[in-house]
């Protein structure tokens, strides 16, 4: 049940973020979350990784296609789409969604500053002994994923 609460909280956070930047809820399509063992290769073009510490340990990733990040930058008033801007926005989305869950999960849910990963996620972040929830989404037709990989996630739940 604890994991279900975490996932619901993150789903709400993703919905709120994209509703906020696009001023409507229709442009976001949320897929069905699924559980993976960390043997699979995960990660789209660019990923913002937030390390979680405190009572719960692990990582939260916002992984995105470059196309979605370009639309996000446009919606925030930017007209430059260099790697610097793409990396900045993918980290900021990961930071915002992770930070917002503290309203529900409390101040013991500590978040790091974002690290940006290009391509597949590395073993330092996606530890093989952990499971991860993948929340697929499309925003304005462009693909992204929120990946929640926390110690508390248990395949038996």
């Amino acid at each position, binding site marked *: 049940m604890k994991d279900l609460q975490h996932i619901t909280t993150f789903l709400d956070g993703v919905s709120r973020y994209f509703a906020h930047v696009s001023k409507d809820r229709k442009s976001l399509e949320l897929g069905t979350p699924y559980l993976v063992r960390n043997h699979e290769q995960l990660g789209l073009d660019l990923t913002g990784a937030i390390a979680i510490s405190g009572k719960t340990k692990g990582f939260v990733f916002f992984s995105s296609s470059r196309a979605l990040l370009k639309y996000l930058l446009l919606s925030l008033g930017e007209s430059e789409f260099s790697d610097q801007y793409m990396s*900045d926005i993918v980290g900021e989305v990961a*930071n915002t*969604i992770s*930070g*917002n869950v*503290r309203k529900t999960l*409390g101040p013991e849910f500590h978040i790091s500053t974002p690290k940006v990963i290009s391509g597949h996620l590395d073993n330092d972040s996606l530890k093989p002994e952990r499971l991860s929830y993948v929340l697929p989404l499309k925003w304005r037709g462009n693909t992204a994923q929120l990946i929640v990989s926390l110690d508390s996630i248990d395949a038996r739940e």
Partner: protein
Amino acid sequence: MKLLIVDDSLVIRNKISRSLLSRFAKVERAENGRQALESAKKELPDLVTMDLTMPEMGGVECIRHMVTIAPKAAILVVSALSDKHTAITALKYGANGFLCKPFTESDLQSAIEQVLKVAGQR
């Protein structure tokens, strides 16, 4: 009036700057708390927008020093950390208001009005 924007995100610094440029005669930017304190010593800002989660020096530690370096500055925390405990801690150390990310230009303008009022600078 002088504004100091403190945030590790370039996109957020740009967004705040665009939203508030017409209101302030000078706008300075800092990527972390350490840079913010260096800038504040030179410029003595009237208003500071302060992120909390930043590399090198985070926002809470920066606020603790900022209130002695620029005691007249109004400080608005602009952070993704949305829990009450974080907001109360920031206010305890000297912030005048709190705005949660993501925010609209209108949210930011309203929060700025409020902190300037609270800090007695209007």
